[in-house]
């Protein structure tokens, strides 16, 4: 069975308050083949080490951004990471082909309910539309963009006892990525990966 190395770049600026992302992080850490990088932990001053991060990218096959949605985007350190790490000549431009072919996806939690992320909802845009800058980042760097693993209504997930279910799905998704059992085309056809695992994870093989 093919084994892929999965890099989870985890960014949560106030982890001690986290109700959803932290359990997801714990689960990810336990999956063999997954490297979890806590960006706020490693770079509390935002002084990100470019060489180190680029080496990490090179030694992994799948890249995941895991974060709580802040103002319809990533927390600031992930943007900083993009600004510094995805250099011309490394990630794009002439000879910038280092990331080509690596699947990329966002694993995120959003406070609003799923219904809010619709043209007629109060957020007006779908989560896929809001993540378009990241989708285009993947395109320009030659990565293979997958729809997000998005958890909605994260502020009530504990009260609704949904956390364990989310964690289990995330675990399955990560295992499928490590075991290379994700049908990329089938996944790309979906709006989000959450709750749709059976539609794109190949059995056996």
């Amino acid at each position, binding site marked *: 069975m093919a084994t892929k190395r999965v890099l989870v770049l985890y960014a949560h600026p106030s982890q001690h308050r986290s109700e959803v992302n932290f359990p997801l992080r714990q689960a990810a850490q336990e999956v063999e083949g997954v490297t979890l990088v806590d960006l706020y932990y490693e770079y509390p*001053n935002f*002084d990100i080490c*470019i*060489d180190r991060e680029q080496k990490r990218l090179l030694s992994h096959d799948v890249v995941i951004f895991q974060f709580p949605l802040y103002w319809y985007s990533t927390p600031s350190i992930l943007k900083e990471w993009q*600004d*510094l790490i995805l*250099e*011309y*000549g490394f990630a*794009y*431009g*002439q000879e910038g082909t280092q990331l*080509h*072919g690596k699947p990329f996806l966002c694993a995120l939690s959003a406070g609003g309910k799923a219904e809010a992320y619709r043209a007629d909802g109060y957020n007006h845009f779908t989560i896929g539309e809001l993540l378009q800058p990241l989708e285009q980042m993947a*395109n*320009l760097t*030659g990565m*293979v963009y997958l729809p997000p693993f998005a958890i909605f209504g994260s502020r009530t997930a504990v009260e609704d006892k949904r956390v364990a279910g989310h964690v289990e799905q995330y675990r399955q998704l990560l295992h499928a990525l490590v075991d290379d059992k994700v049908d990329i085309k089938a996944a790309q056809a979906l709006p989000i990966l959450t709750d749709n695992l059976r539609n794109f994870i190949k059995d056996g093989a």
Partner: protein
Amino acid sequence: MTSYFIQAFIYLVAAVIAVPLAKRFGLGSVLGYLIAGTVIGPVIGLVGEETTTIQHFAEFGVVMMLFLVGLELEPRMLWGMRNRLLGLGGLQVGLTAAIVMGIALGFNQPWSIALAIGLIFSLSSTAIVLQTFNEKGLTKTEGGQNAFSVLLFQDIAVIPMLAFIPLLALPELIAQAQQAVHTAADHHEELSLVAGLPGWAYGLVITASIAAVVVGGHFLSRPLFKFVAGSGLREIFTATALMLVVGIAALMSLVGLSPALGTFIAGVMLANSEFRHELESNIEPFKGLLLGLFFITVGAGIRFDVLFGEFFTIIGLTLAVIALKAAVLFVLALIFRIKGSNRWLFTLSLAQAGEFGFVLLSFSTQNHVLPAEIVQTLSLVVALSMFLTPGLFILFDKVILPRYERQSNQREEDVIEEKGTVIIAGIGRFGQIVNRVLVANGVKTVVLDHQADQVDNLRRINTQAYFGDATRPDLLHTAGVEEAAMVVVAIDNQEASVELVKYLKHSFPKVKVLARAFDRGHGYQLRQAGADVIESETYHSALELGAAAMREFGQHPFLVEQQKNAFKRAEDAQSDELYAAWNDESEGSERYDNNYVKLFMALEERIKQAMAFDRSDGHSMAERSWTPPPKGYADQFSEDDPSSKES
């Protein structure tokens, strides 16, 4: 004189052999002392008659222990535990005394004898229990705290008992009324200030003496300690501490109160003092030795002839007493909702009779309350039950605790509560800031400094600070270094700080040591000594001032920040290499000569490089920050996405 030396030598030899062996077999030091006593006493008969005399002397160990116990208790804390003290302690003493008395009555003893026996067995051994708690680190557990309240109540209850027991000698009631006052002072009566005083005057004298201890402890101790500390002589400080304890014990004896209670009160009064830890570390060794001596005399005092004469009666009685006390304690633990393993700790730790039992027994004999045969038997029961106590602790450790540990694997929250403190050695301009950061974040700190003025200032602004030389192992011990999470070494003396780090890492490898370095060389010394974290006291502030200078030049603050980071990175990258070079070189001034100097120059060069940006237009791989792509780069892209060009 010669015989004293020989006796002392025998006692010490017994202790030196038996105690380390007992500890090695996991039996605790108390059992070691008891065994040592039995061996030199009844078994091979090296010591004998003088045991009682020595015991009186050794009881002073108990007095010192209570002084130390008092030092650990701030008055506020004592007030906070008043419910447990009165409720738990009162019920324990009352119930046990009543039940024992009932049983004795069942055996056709007169009620006065029955009551006296009840009172005697209601007491437990403060000495054994506290010593064992200390050794096993159980003092802070719920079971340990509750047991402590009960012990404290018992120690206080001894005083009215001493006053009351003479009244039980019914036929001589009138004659005893005066003698109660007279003999209450001690069972081996010599001097008394209050003999023959009428009741009201006696009350006044007692109140006045306690007031003297309280007021003196509060107002006079600090000027006294400051005066002594100013001399800088350690032995005089030790002498002062001893003088205090001995003086109070003497005063209490003179007015017919328990010396242990008096020193306990004095201890509580001094618990808030900045000299507390220094006092503790001065008294501690005396207490340890005297207590040990006390236990040896208990072992040596066991009368094998009496024991074997009524072997089964005495063993039966001992087991019955332990079982009964345990039952009472267990019920109380249920009522007071002491849970889990703590319930068992509480039950088992206090199920023996105590050293005050001996005191009451001989006191009862003197006052014609108990006949001599009963006293002889009961003395053995008290001693044996003390002898068996370490066994009960082993039972708790080996059988009960593992069971609960297996059960409570799931919940760890209770453990986190005791986060461990941070000891800050040296509270000058550097340690002070460290302390403020920690305290502001709710971390418990213990601050030590050898400048009484400095400590005074800190106490004025509500910081816990203690006077003392932080490089002294015994002071570190009383400051709780064993249980501390970290020690911050910020003392001014450079050599002493290196020595302290060495000692800490050697003796307490688990404790993290964070050290302040004066300069690069001192930093390397600290690193060599094993410090876990080292910060140079000037480095960061100098870096900030340098950055401020750059900003004054009109540099953009964000650029300055980046440059600062680059400087730091270059420094960090080099520090291992430089340290290795320093470490290789010979001692002294030559250290900075050869290799090290070359490396240092190389470092400066590298820092310069890190600072120098490639300012040419376009993207530079040397400049690792926000740089734009080269002009016209977008022309390379066709309309479709780049992944299509992959082939």
